[in-house]
């Protein structure tokens, strides 16, 4: 009887942590963030798509830490046999290598499989700012230097670089105030008017924009964001060079055979055409992709890598170590 109660106590304390570990599966997708991030959610969708396509078992393994670098550590030492993949934001390979000096991975360590989905960068102002267009906002900032401040979810990320570039193109010295990976404080600080403007991914701001508590002035794609048909792009407003997007890339270790990569890409990209999945992801603010072949994605990423490299050199931007 004694031991029965002891074991009850033990089972209760441990059950919730122990169960997920028991389900050992063959195939893994690494993600460099904690469970529950939008990247993690997207990776889980991809795992479902892969599993549904041929009945194989896929799990998402979170390796958070060091700004996503631990995910790359994991994929670098993983077998290049198509059983282990990594999903990461494009900026981790195209922008971060230019800004962080001590990075232990590069674009050459991975072979892209698919550009799964992404979203544009949005320039957002608080509803307390009188300007309703980008031009009016720029003029309003020029009147008072104290207004030339914009928030970003993360220091040194694509939205940050984009804001710097906007400041240069528009001729206003915009100062950055970075947050810790976005989240609710950045949004409420802009809604409350404590920060008057932000450069950030579109997805997080759709609800506030529709509620009228913030205004998205422009988005960074070559086309308007599907969720925001009335918001112009920077290109439409005359800023020809202001194009960028944040996309989530599925990739394999660099040595993975090409045929294997093409096979996985075909399964994932076919799964992404499912209307129900597309609707669900669009509602979350994503623009679903999955259209380009692996070789095309690789070429695009090399071009983006050069684009951000030139921009970083051009602006003299430097991470402090």
């Amino acid at each position: 009887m004694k031991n029965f109660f002891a074991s009850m106590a033990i089972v209760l304390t441990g059950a919730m942590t122990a169960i997920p570990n028991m389900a050992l599966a063959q195939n893994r997708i690494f993600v460099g963030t904690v469970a529950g991030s939008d990247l993690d959610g997207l990776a889980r969708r991809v795992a479902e798509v892969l599993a549904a396509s041929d009945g194989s078992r896929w799990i998402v393994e979170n390796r958070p830490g060091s700004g996503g670098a631990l995910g790359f550590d994991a994929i670098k030492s993983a077998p290049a046999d198509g059983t282990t993949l990594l999903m990461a934001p494009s900026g981790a390979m195209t922008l971060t290598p230019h800004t962080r000096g001590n990075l232990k991975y590069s674009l050459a360590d991975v072979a892209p499989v698919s550009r799964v989905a992404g979203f544009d960068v949005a320039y957002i102002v608080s509803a307390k700012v009188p300007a309703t267009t980008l031009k009016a906002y720029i003029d309003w900032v020029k009147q008072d230097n104290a207004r030339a401040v914009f928030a970003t979810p993360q220091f040194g990320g694509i939205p940050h670089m984009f804001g710097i570039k906007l400041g240069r193109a528009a001729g206003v010295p915009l100062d950055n105030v970075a947050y810790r990976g976005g989240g609710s404080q950045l949004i409420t600080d802009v809604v409350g008017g404590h920060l008057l403007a932000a450069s950030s991914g579109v997805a997080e701001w759709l609800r506030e924009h529709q509620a009228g508590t913030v205004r998205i002035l422009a988005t960074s794609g070559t086309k308007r964001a599907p969720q925001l048909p009335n918001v112009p792009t920077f290109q439409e407003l005359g800023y020809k060079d202001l194009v960028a997007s944040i996309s989530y890339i599925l990739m394999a270790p660099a040595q993975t055979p090409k045929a294997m990569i093409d096979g996985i890409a075909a399964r994932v990209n076919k799964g992404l055409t499912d209307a129900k999945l597309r609707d669900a992801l669009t509602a979350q603010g994503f623009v679903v992709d999955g259209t380009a072949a692996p070789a095309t994605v690789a070429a695009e990423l090399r071009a983006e890598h050069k684009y951000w490299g030139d921009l970083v050199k051009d602006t003299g931007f430097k991470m402090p170590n």
Partner: protein
Amino acid sequence: MDLFSNLATGFGVALTLQNLAFALGGVFIGTLIGVLPGLGPVPAIAMLLPSIYTLDPTAALIMLAGVYYGAQYGGSTTAILINLPGESSSIVTAIDGYQMARKGRAGAALAAAGLGSFFAGCVGTLVLAAFAPALAGIAFAFGPAEYAALMLLGLIGAVVLASGAVMKAVGMVLLGLLLGQINTDPLSGVERFSFGIPELTDGLGFVAVAMGLFGFGEIIGNLNRPPESREVFTRDVKNLWPTREDFRQAMPAVLRGTALGSLLGVLPGGGAILASFVSYTLEKRVSKTPERFGHGAIEGVAGPESANNAAAQTSFIPMLTLGIPPNPVMALMIGAMVVMGITPGPKVMVENPDLFWGLIASMWIGNLMLIILNLPFIGIWVKLLTVPYRFLFPSIVCFCVIGLYTLSNNNFDIYLAGVFAVIGFAFIKLRCEAGPLLLGMVLGPMLEENLRRTLLVSRGDWSVLLTRPISGTLIAIAVVMLVAALLPAIRKRRDNAFRD
């Protein structure tokens, strides 16, 4: 009325099958660790943190809250039956409760404690529901300056209201602030004190540190004490229902205890523990027969038990509405919220109304579950007191380590917890409270970030911190608290209050 529609929302959330299950799980674990002497709600919540990562935040907080107030019930069982308070807020319950048990009236004592706690828990929850929204109106007025001031207030509060020596508390907060500096500065991207270890660039893991300090440290500390001889009054727990005379004596004590607890719980600092002490003193003072106290007076059980439970509920007010933790349990809850991406503060009520009201409604349900768990099933808990530690502790440690690994699928968190287990044990030996350290570690980086955002927006003008009404008021309160703590007369009284 708003209150009712809010509570309706809350019950809608709390009554889903998932949340009911987590409330039950929480109060069950709470009762369990309350019953086990030596394990309190702080180590228990610290140990549960890894498993809540992937949960829905509402369910997770419902469970953690259940552990906290469940421990208040469970603690009294041990106090009454074996004179070992299972939890610090039931220390006074042991005085008269154990005497009642020795006189063969264990059943009546348990019932008085249980029913008193239930009544107080319900009233405390109502107080929480009624008064919390008054503070919600200022939600969007909170920007970086206000957060910076709030964090400053929280840090100073942690020093002023920690029990024990002020200098030790100051030292612990400072140590926590220093540990909080290990990270990548979010505003400039500088890696600080990471020594090339990638895991350190995201800062020390709150969960690993908390589990090391509180969970493992407490276990080592417990094993360091000589085993107590245990006299368990198992056979005597038969006639649970108190007599009419018992009711007549206990009722006013329950009412007074509830009122006291509801008030004291809101204050930062002692909360539940303080409330139970004050209630016992009050009952003894108003009694016509004070000589019965210490020899099995039912008021001495009913009053403090009601007080500690009411305080346990109302201590959620500062935590949920301002993000200021009034005690270490609430500090852990705040840590858990941060981990799940919720910024503690007045905005929680606005942004996560489901979480806020669901949590409050779940407390009623949890209290009801507890009275059922604790009175009819009392025999089960009594049996548990006979499980030897040599089986219990190794199993707990084993599952904690599994939990730590699952945090980020990395051995680093386990090593980190191991290091902090040794540090935690050293703190117990040195009689240093680890709570202020943890607060410093959590609040420090938030204070720094928000202060620097304030200064960036104000273009380096420090005066905004004082001229903005909310941040100015918060800083004024912090200064008053600090001065009060340093004045010798008040300090003496404070030391006496904690000496009892």
